[in-house]
């Protein structure tokens, strides 16, 4: 038991840091700030045929064409109408071929929080119904809980293969 606690705090220590928090539906999420390149307004997105529906398409980011993923759909939430608060968080993720720039559509950006390791807990197991692999941990801020995302896992590796598989 003591060993587990020690382990937990060690992992939590690595997870401490600044997080960009945002809202997706009714849930609050956090993204490691170091992964965030910039936040841009929603702009016209060109749909790419034969890709899964959570891939909204591609946009022109100052001359670079980058894919944009709708995190709502990615997490299986209902599609929502875009509002003036909807925006694209551009993240740099680690991918097999190196660092890849991608856009993620979220409902609303909240703030940047400095979350100490002590306030971060591992995600509880929800059984097979909910996959928790892409959750870095749960950040406790006052009364609320932020789901801290491991964005590399959310968007890369297996998932990108899925994009390809779905489109093949």
């Amino acid at each position, binding site marked *: 038991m003591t060993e587990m606690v020690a382990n937990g705090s060690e992992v939590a220590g690595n997870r401490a840091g600044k997080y960009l928090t945002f809202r997706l539906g009714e849930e609050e999420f956090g993204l490691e700030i170091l992964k965030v390149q910039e936040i841009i307004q929603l702009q016209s997105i060109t749909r790419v*045929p034969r890709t899964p529906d959570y891939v909204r398409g591609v946009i022109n980011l100052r001359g670079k064409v980058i894919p944009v993923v709708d995190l709502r759909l990615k997490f299986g939430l209902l599609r929502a109408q875009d509002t003036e608060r909807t925006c694209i968080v551009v993240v740099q993720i680690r991918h097999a071929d190196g660092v890849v720039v991608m856009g993620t559509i979220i409902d609303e950006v909240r703030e940047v929080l400095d979350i100490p390791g002590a306030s971060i807990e591992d995600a509880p197991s929800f059984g097979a119904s909910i996959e928790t692999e892409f959750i870095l941990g749960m950040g406790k801020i006052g009364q609320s809980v932020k789901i801290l995302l491991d964005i590399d896992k959310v968007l890369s590796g297996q998932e990108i293969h899925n994009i*390809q598989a779905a489109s093949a």
Partner: protein
Amino acid sequence: MPIPTDKQKIRQDLEEFRRSLEKGEKNLANSLLSLLETLCEMGGIPGAMRTLARRLAATAGGIASGAEGSKKELSKLIQGLTKLERSLEDSPMFGDHPEPNPAVAPRESTPPDSEEMDLLERFASRQRTELEEFEVAILEREKGTAVGDEFVKRYLHTLKGEFGVLDLGEWSNLVHEVETALDEKRLGTEGLLRLKDLIGDRLGRLNSARGRAVSEEDRQTVFGAPPSQFPSGPASDPATSTNFAGDPSFLVDFIAEGGDHIHNIEKSLLKLEINPNDEESINLVFRSCHTLKGLAAFLELRDIQRLAHSAESLMDRARNHAIVLGGQHVDVLLEATDAFRHLVDGLEKQVTGGSWEPPPNLEALIDRLCDADYLPPMPALAPEKSSRKMGELLVEKGVAPEAVERALRRQQEGDVRPLGEILIRAGDANPRDVGQILSQKAQAAKSPDGKSLSVEETIRVPVQRLDLLIDAIGEAVIAQSMVWADPRLQEVRDLPLENKIAQATLMLRQIQELSMSLRMVGIRSTFQKMSRLVRDLARKLDKQIELCMEGEDTELDKTVVENIGDPLVHMVRNSVDHGIELAPDRIAAGKPVQGRICLRAYHKAGSVFIEIEDDGKGLDREAILRKAIASGKAKADQSYSDAEVHQMVFLPGLSTAKAVTDVSGRGVGMDVVKKNIEALRGAVEIRSEKGVGSSFVIRLPLTLAIIQGMVVRSRGERYIVPTLSILTTVRPEEGRVHTVVGKGEVLNLRGDIVRLVRLGRIFSDSTENDGSDAQGVVIVVEDAFGRKIGIVVDEILEQQQVVIKNIGGGMGQVPGITGGAVMSDGSVSLILDVGAVVKIASE
């Protein structure tokens, strides 16, 4: 004198000592010695610094005892002190974290800690530029300038010291040896260049134990073979002297590298034949001979070593202007080249276990090389001679007059080839003689002091930076067109303003075009690789093949040039292997014994064409067709045009079938060739006539970055269809579109039945026909296999040039889409991959 312990003080004291030493006062050497010794024994100083201090202490000790008071030693000490001062300044406060065990002795073998790593990295990055300067200085020095000599010496000296500071003792020693060898004139330009290459090669690896070590091999690389071994070295038993008992991997390397050098020598010799004063070529031959000699000496290949040595000596005399290379020199040298080749081939055979005979006339050849400069100079041609007819000169060379007359008659009968060529082809004249006469004529035609062409100046820029610039300019163009397209601006009726904007647009376009040209490189190097390939293969297959190249200066996008190499190799190999017949067959077919393969590159109609033409036996139409029918790729009852049959060579199933390659002699991996070329957005076409020859024509886009595209709309999305793949566009009249069992649609296009594909339908998730696509425009495209298909879109918007962008990492390959393009309104449109669309449609 009290021994200071804090860093600042030590530095000051060192500086003081240095000053006084610079003034020539040596009486302080003893105090300096004790200071340095203290420094060595102090805890917490980096190992590198300790080594340097120790080295300096030894020198100072020598000076103090009066034994080594030479000026050189003194200046060495001063330089070392400067360095020590500098590293004291750079090093973090030593003494603050004393070493756990200060008594621990030399740290030479310990792996570098992070601080030293940092020093190493800084050293390596600085050296990269300094090595370039070093090279310039070496070459400058070769010309005999004092500046160059001084720079080289100073650089070596600094380098030695820096290696010392960095704890790289072995390197420091190596540089020291080089310095000494240089002083004693045992080492010349070649050695210095090799040192430079060696260091450059190792810079990145200095942090590893292997990189830190200087092996005997490295030393050999720099110093070459010990000079005492030749020319009169113990020539061991000549019969076995080419045998080699050592590590065969060295031999394999030598065979490859030696081949390159021989190739270079030959190429430069041919240049020298035309212009004997071409210093660059002289140096190249010299250098290659020298390297060959060194390599051969290392591997104890005495024959090659001796031959290379005599050739090198001859070239050395030419280099020092002791002799002017005449035809007779070049002849002997060319013979030597052949002998080299023979020897190296022999090695290759030995490695593979074959038998081989040494060249019989080697000794005589070496003698002749040594005597070559005493050969009577070629009789200078009197001016009026050069204006004489080719035929006369040839007869003088020993060509039968009847043969010349015969050739002249052929010319009158309409043969457009030059006289020399006719004679060579007919076997009446020796190519070397003809070459000599031609070069004499060329010389005579030139003004005596005709300067060589001025060399274009270049700057090397990292490709990445170039791409950034090109991207940025592309962005600027888009930004500009967004301004231009702004409706508010459209409303303004102001001629001067419009003129200004038009001017800016024009300038920007020019800049964009310029930026595209920055990525263009000549195809020369790729072609040159082929000449080696043809030679090797021809030799292996025992065929005589001449390779001619045209348009090597044709420029292509760098990426295209890099990627066209493999397909070219494949096709050239096919031509040599299967195209050109064996000599007896050629004679039987009434062709010249020597086969001919031509590589051509040229620009035409906005594309680049590369042709590989051979005068071999051509494609065997029947055999290909038979095989295609057998494998179900073609129908027995259908008639095919020649072009269609030739295209079958590229079919995957067909190419790998060995039976076909045996019969038709074509198609090993041709499908891969085709795929590679298509990946470059090019196309390949075959023209072939049985018994006469074949030619493969590759068409490539000028650049990969820009395409001409047709912007179309389909279900609200814009797509770009590459204009290159569009055959025609039609708006079908009522009744021309027929449905097939209610699903498929076809269009009767001037008698051709073309299948229709509705873009909206294959690209949308729903498959239902919502009726909105009943109308539309048909874009008839052709895929790589020549299959025609009609893509139905809602409307054609415009034609424009677009810059192709990758549609983002992490997106992977999207079928049907090759990339995206940023449109003038800043949004992204997708570019269709026509081949893939056809494929999707047929699924």
